[in-house]
C-alpha cells in the first residue's frame, strides 16, 4: 500500500469501517512509514474533535425572550375593534352600524357650522368676530381720521376701510 491510498482511508480506519484485510495493510504501512504515522496522529486529533463536539446550553433568558415575542404577536393580532369581541355575535353588526350613524351625524353637524340665514351670520363665533372688528376700528382706525387728504397714508386707509 502506498501513502496516497493510506490518506484516502484515514477516516475509514479511525471509524473502523474498513475490512480486516485493509486495516492490517494500513497498520503495516504505519509501522514502516514515519510520515504517515505522524499524519495519522495529527489527523486523529482533528477527527476526534469532529466526532465529539460539545453541546451548548440555552441562555437563561431563552423562554422569557420567546414569551415576549409570542405575547407581542398576539397583541398585534387583536383587531382595532377588539372590544366588540366581548359582545354576542348578533349584537356586533348592530353596534357597528350605530357607531357609523353617530359618526355620520356628527360629521354632518360639524360641516354645517357656522350657519347663515338671509346672509346674516347667526353663530356666536361670527358675532364675536364682528364685535372685535368694531372694537378695532374705533380704537385703532378712528385716530387716523385726521390724516392729510391725498397723502399715501390717507389713500391706504381709504382702501382698507372701503370708504
Amino acid at each position, binding site marked *: 500500500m502506498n501513502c496516497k491510498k493510506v490518506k*484516502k482511508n484515514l477516516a475509514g480506519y479511525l471509524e473502523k469501517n474498513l475490512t480486516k484485510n485493509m486495516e492490517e495493510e494500513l497498520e503495516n504501512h504505519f509501522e514502516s512509514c514515519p510520515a504517515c504515522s505522524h499524519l495519522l496522529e495529527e489527523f486523529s486529533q482533528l477527527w476526534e474533535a469532529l466526532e465529539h463536539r460539545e453541546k451548548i446550553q440555552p441562555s437563561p433568558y431563552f423562554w422569557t425572550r420567546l414569551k415576549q415575542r409570542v405575547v407581542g*404577536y398576539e397583541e398585534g393580532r387583536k383587531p382595532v375593534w377588539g372590544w366588540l369581541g366581548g359582545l354576542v355575535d348578533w349584537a356586533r353588526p348592530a353596534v357597528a352600524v350605530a357607531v357609523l350613524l353617530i359618526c355620520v351625524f356628527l360629521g354632518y353637524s360639524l360641516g354645517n357650522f357656522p350657519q347663515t340665514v338671509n346672509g346674516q351670520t347667526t353663530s356666536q363665533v361670527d358675532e364675536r368676530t364682528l364685535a372685535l372688528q368694531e372694537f378695532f376700528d374705533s380704537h385703532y382706525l378712528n385716530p387716523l381720521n385726521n390724516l392729510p387728504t391725498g397723502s399715501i397714508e390717507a389713500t391706504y386707509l381709504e382702501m382698507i376701510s372701503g370708504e
Partner: protein
Amino acid sequence: MNDEELIQRIIDKDHLAFKLLVDQYQHLVLNTCYNLLGNRQDAEDAAQEVFFQVYKSAQKFRGEAKISTWLYRIAVNRSLNFIRDKKRSGWLRNLSSLLEGERQEVADVPASDSARPDVALEEKERNVIVQKVIDSLPEKQRTAFVLHKYEGLSYQEIAEISKYSLSSVESLIHRAKLNLQKQLLGYLKQK
C-alpha cells in the same frame, strides 16, 4: 400528555403547554441549529425563530410524524435560510470583521475545560478548524452529516426529516465524510 394533546393546547394559545414543549425540546433545536450554523448567537436566534414558527403554525402539525421530527425539519430549514441570508449580506459582515480586526467565530467556539492553557488553546484551534470544514460542506451533505453524527439519528429518520430517499442520505453522509477528510488533510498539509 401525548403529542397531539400538547399541540392542541398550543393551538388553543395555552402558554403553559407551549412552555412544556420549549422546555422539552430546546436543547434538541438549539444544538441542531448550532451544529449547522457554528455560531452560538445565530443558533439561539434561529432556535427562537423555530419555536415562534411552531407557536404560529401549530395547526400544521399533522401527527403522522413525531414532534421531534417536525421540530428537526423546521430547525434545519430555518438554519439553512439563516446561512443563505448571511451569505447575501456577507460583504457587510466581512467589512464588520475587518473593522473589528478579528474573526468572531473564534470566540463562539466553546471553551475547553482543560486546566493547561496551551492544551486548551490547541483544542480551541482544532474546534475552529472543525467548524470551518463543516461550514465548507454543501447544504445537503452538512444537514445529513450533522443529524447523523451529532444528533445520533438513523438514516431512516434523516430521510423522514429531509424528505430525501434512504439511498440519498447514505450517499450524502459518505460524501460528507470524504469531503471532511480531504479538507482536514488539506489543512494539515498547509500547517
